[in-house]
């Protein structure tokens, strides 16, 4: 056994890459409470204060502090950078200064030109000219798109396609760097390459994989060089907790230096790191204060990670997110929970460094988590609004015990899977298109199959449902094909070698589709079924509005009459998607998650039969429409819990806002209530919950007086943002959401 592994229980993991087994043999579940935790050191306070100053400057500068367009972002494009030179205990920045953003043109040079122009910079001529000869991912996609694909894209039937920048959602198992060191990973990749390249049948898949693995090896060598620039030799395994954090972070950092993917998760590192922490504590190598300091600095580094974006992108995904998602807790297949002291330390950073949106801390909730930990999480939620919860009991049977969360809510097996992600299709618009028989309600453009529009009404429910399905079928085929093109081109022109280097060479792939306008579509169909809905036509005969007589059940009140419609919509969508073959045999999955794009989707959608006015934002994710869930929080949660995660394995996102007063009169009571709420919701089989504990009046004040709330953090849809970093439109939408309060 290697010297660095002394004290660890050996197993298969010493002979081959198997982080999961290493964790299981060596971690110590922690059943105690938070009393062992350490506060911030003077050094941490100093570095944190510097970051706070920089964040203020960044906000004053309009959201982006500095852009460096002088070179293309690569693993070693920039020399070392520090938050406070000489004071960083965990080192490494994307560029040579905190909050300075670089350019990643291989996803799309067009977008980079726009970005750079928006910030008054100029792309150096030699870089600009290079792209006369280089095909980007974006170029490739648009060479393959059909006219109809471009049409559904610009009319807003499918929005948010990652066809102009990095696709993201790949999670390297960065822990491998710490456990094995880079040299061992290179040797393993070289073996893989030789095996794949010497196969008898060199088909397209094998050729592509061999080339990809070759590029991964190149990246691993570059990562070693990057670490050397910071004074570290990471060719061998990490020997203590500080190095374990540092090695893991270097591996992650390479990925975000090279790629501007929409979501760049960290994975599931906290319990892994705890194994090193426990060994060091036992051997007197480091104290609790020192270990907390390393964790604080690791988290602080993640808080200053940035990608350069266009205004248009920010309109879709507000708040400048990176989705550095870290999964905490959960339960193992042997029944032992995976909460360790380090799970607490990571949450403690929200006190030591104040509330913040990144990293996207995600508690993997199980009924079997230890009670003190449940209470601590609830307390942190109440105090900081910075964490989200996902149902480990639901995900574990499908993804095993060592999965992590890509982006907001999507499970991926660590080291073994990757995800092809893209966009959402607009369910509300599909219904309108069906009722109009193939005419877009906003532009009058003909799109999709053409048929007679519905008559003068009242609209017959069976007819409406049939029409909805006809257009869903048509759009899903198109959607799968678009995704195939995007990911084919991304693999070809913008392969994420630095991230893929930390995955198995032959990975399993998921293809994650999404829907938006979920509650609007369900409520609109409910209106047609239970009230009387009459179409209103414009002078050209296009249905542009609806007159609805009578009341109808609304999603979000635990009323099966409409909740069954919502469930049927989710089931029909995945059924239609599954009919169409995917690129590289990836497995179709579906999410009901919008991020903040619910605002943009609403903007692109006309009046709907549920009474929603044209242009009004949708509810986010699987949320009931704003203020329509009028029977209280449990009824609202119960409605969402009916959406079966097995249908939507990419995630069912629910964002929940409740006033502190509604949780109880005293702090202890509020914590208990929050635990009860999470227990009940996940017991019902629900998948995800974002928790905000605040009053609407606070957000209204923050809307008017942003300078008073520099670090106000809110959960929006699968992630958290600094409220001030949202556009005014996004802020208004968040304020308009249901706040559950005591009657």
């Amino acid at each position, binding site marked *: 056994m290697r010297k660095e592994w002394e004290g660890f229980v050996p197993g298969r993991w010493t002979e081959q890459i198997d982080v999961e087994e290493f964790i299981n043999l060596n971690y110590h579940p922690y059943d105690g409470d938070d009393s062992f935790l350490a506060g911030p050191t003077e050094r941490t306070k100093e570095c944190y204060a510097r970051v706070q100053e920089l964040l203020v400057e960044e906000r004053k500068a309009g959201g982006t502090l500095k852009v460096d367009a002088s070179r293309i972002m690569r693993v070693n494009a920039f020399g070392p950078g520090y938050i406070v030179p000489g004071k960083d205990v965990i080192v490494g920045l994307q560029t040579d200064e905190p909050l300075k953003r670089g350019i990643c043109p291989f996803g799309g040079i067009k977008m980079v030109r726009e970005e750079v122009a928006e910030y008054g910079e100029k792309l150096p001529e030699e870089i600009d000219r290079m792209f006369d000869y280089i095909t980007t991912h974006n170029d490739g996609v648009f060479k393959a798109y059909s006219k109809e694909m471009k049409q559904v894209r610009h009319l807003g039937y499918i929005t948010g396609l990652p066809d102009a920048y990095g696709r993201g959602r790949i999670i390297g198992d960065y822990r491998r760097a710490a456990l094995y060191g880079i040299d061992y990973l290179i040797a393993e990749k070289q073996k893989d390459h030789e095996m794949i390249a010497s196969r008898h049948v060199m088909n397209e898949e094998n050729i592509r994989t061999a080339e990809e693995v070759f590029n991964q090896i190149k990246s691993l060598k570059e990562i070693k060089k990057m670490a050397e620039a910071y004074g570290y030799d990471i060719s061998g395994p990490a020997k203590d907790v500080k190095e374990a954090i540092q090695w893991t972070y270097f591996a992650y950092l390479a990925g975000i230096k090279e790629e501007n993917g929409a979501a760049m998760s960290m994975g599931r590192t906290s319990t892994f790191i705890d194994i090193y922490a426990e060994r060091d504590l036992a051997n007197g190598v480091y104290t609790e204060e020192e270990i907390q300091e390393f964790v604080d600095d690791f988290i602080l580094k993640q808080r200053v990670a940035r990608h350069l974006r266009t205004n248009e992108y920010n309109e879709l995904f507000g708040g400048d997110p990176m989705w550095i998602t870290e999964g905490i807790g959960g339960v193992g297949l042997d029944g032992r929970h995976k909460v360790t002291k380090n799970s607490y330390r990571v949450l403690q950073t929200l006190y030591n460094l104040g509330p913040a949106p990144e990293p996207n801390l995600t508690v993997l909730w199980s009924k079997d988590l230890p009670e003190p930990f449940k209470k601590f999480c609830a307390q942190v939620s109440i105090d900081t609004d910075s964490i989200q919860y996902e149902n480990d009991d639901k995900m574990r049977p499908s993804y095993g015990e060592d999965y992590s969360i890509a982006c907001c809510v999507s499970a991926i097996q660590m080291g073994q899977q990757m995800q092809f992600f893209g966009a959402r299709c607009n369910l509300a618009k599909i219904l309108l298109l069906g009722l109009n028989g193939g005419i877009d309600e906003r532009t009058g453009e003909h799109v999709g199959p053409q048929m007679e529009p519905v008559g003068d009404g009242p609209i017959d429910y069976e007819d409406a449902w049939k029409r909805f399905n006809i257009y869903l079928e048509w759009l899903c085929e198109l959607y799968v094909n678009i995704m195939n093109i995007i990911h084919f081109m991304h693999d070809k022109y913008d392969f994420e070698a630095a991230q893929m280097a930390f995955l198995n060479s032959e990975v399993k792939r998921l293809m994650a589709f999404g829907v938006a306008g979920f509650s609007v579509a369900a409520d609109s169909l409910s209106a047609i079924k239970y009230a009387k809905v009459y179409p209103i036509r414009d002078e050209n005969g296009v249905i542009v509005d609806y007159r609805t007589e009578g009341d109808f059940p609304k999603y979000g009140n*635990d009323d099966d009459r409409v909740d069954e419609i919502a469930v049927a919509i989710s089931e029909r969508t995945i059924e239609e998607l599954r009919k169409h073959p995917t690129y590289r045999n990836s497995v179709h999955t579906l999410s009901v998650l919008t991020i903040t794009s619910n605002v943009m989707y609403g903007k692109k959608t006309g009046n709907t039969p549920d009474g929603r006015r044209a242009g009004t934002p949708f509810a986010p994710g699987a949320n009931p429409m704003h203020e329509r869930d009028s029977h*209280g929080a*449990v009824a609202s949660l119960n409605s969402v819990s009916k959406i079966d995660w097995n249908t939507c394995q990419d995630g069912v996102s629910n964002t929940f806002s409740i006033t502190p*007063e509604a949780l109880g009169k005293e702090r202890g*009571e509020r914590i208990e209530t929050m635990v009860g709420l999470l227990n009940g919701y996940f017991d019902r089989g629900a998948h995800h919950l974002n928790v905000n504990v605040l009053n609407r009046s606070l957000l209204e004040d923050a809307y008017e007086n942003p300078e008073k709330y520099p670090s106000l953090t809110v959960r929006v849809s699968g992630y958290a943002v600094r409220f001030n970093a949202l556009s005014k439109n996004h802020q208004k939408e968040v304020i308009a959401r249901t706040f559950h309060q*005591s009657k």
Partner: protein
Amino acid sequence: MRAPYIVFRKGERTEMKGRLHSIETFGAVDGPGIRTVFFMQGCPARCLYCHNPDSWKCDGGRETDLEEILYRAERGRPYYGDKGGVTFSGGEPLMQGQFLIEAMTALKERGIQSALDISGTYVDEYTRDALAACDLVLLDIKHPDPERFEIITGCKQDTLFEVIDMMNELEKPCWIRHVVVPDINDTEEDIEALNQFISKIRNIQKVELLAYHTMAVNKYGKLGIVYRLKGVPPMDKGRLDELKKLVRVPEK
């Protein structure tokens, strides 16, 4: 003399109807734990600071039945934990004593605990059995002094004593609740009077002083009812915390 009532048993259907103001499926401030709260319609009192004036009229709200109550209560079950359950509030729920007896008996058969949130302004032949059927009483004492009680509620205090007598005989566990309003009952003497008053109640588990708030004022405007406490500010939280320290929970 009280009339006999029919006990609802498993599998037995009842035609009995109740009147409901609204349902709150997530109640964390009306009894222990997370609770499904049924706000029953109809109230004999006209409290100055009532925050549900639309629950006063007995013919308002909408009809409900046992099936709905049981369905909603069951849907909340995973959230209840050891402490939570159902609370019947109002209005004054005891105005629908017969319906509540059926509902609470059926809930008990299903292992769901019930609390009754009452004001002591109403008693009839069903009251004792309704109190017997619940697991906890939340007794809102509007004021210990009979005259001020009448000013606040528009009702005589006699029924409050009747309710307390029944609770004492049943040794029913209860929480005392008391809304504190600036200039009406926010002095040390007022709290001392409350202490004296509740010392005769036998099984008190908790005393809650609640701050008067003005969030319901708009409802009055919409209903065309004059709000008689206009101009009275919300109760200061700091002052309320001081008063809370003076409360004495009587020994059992």
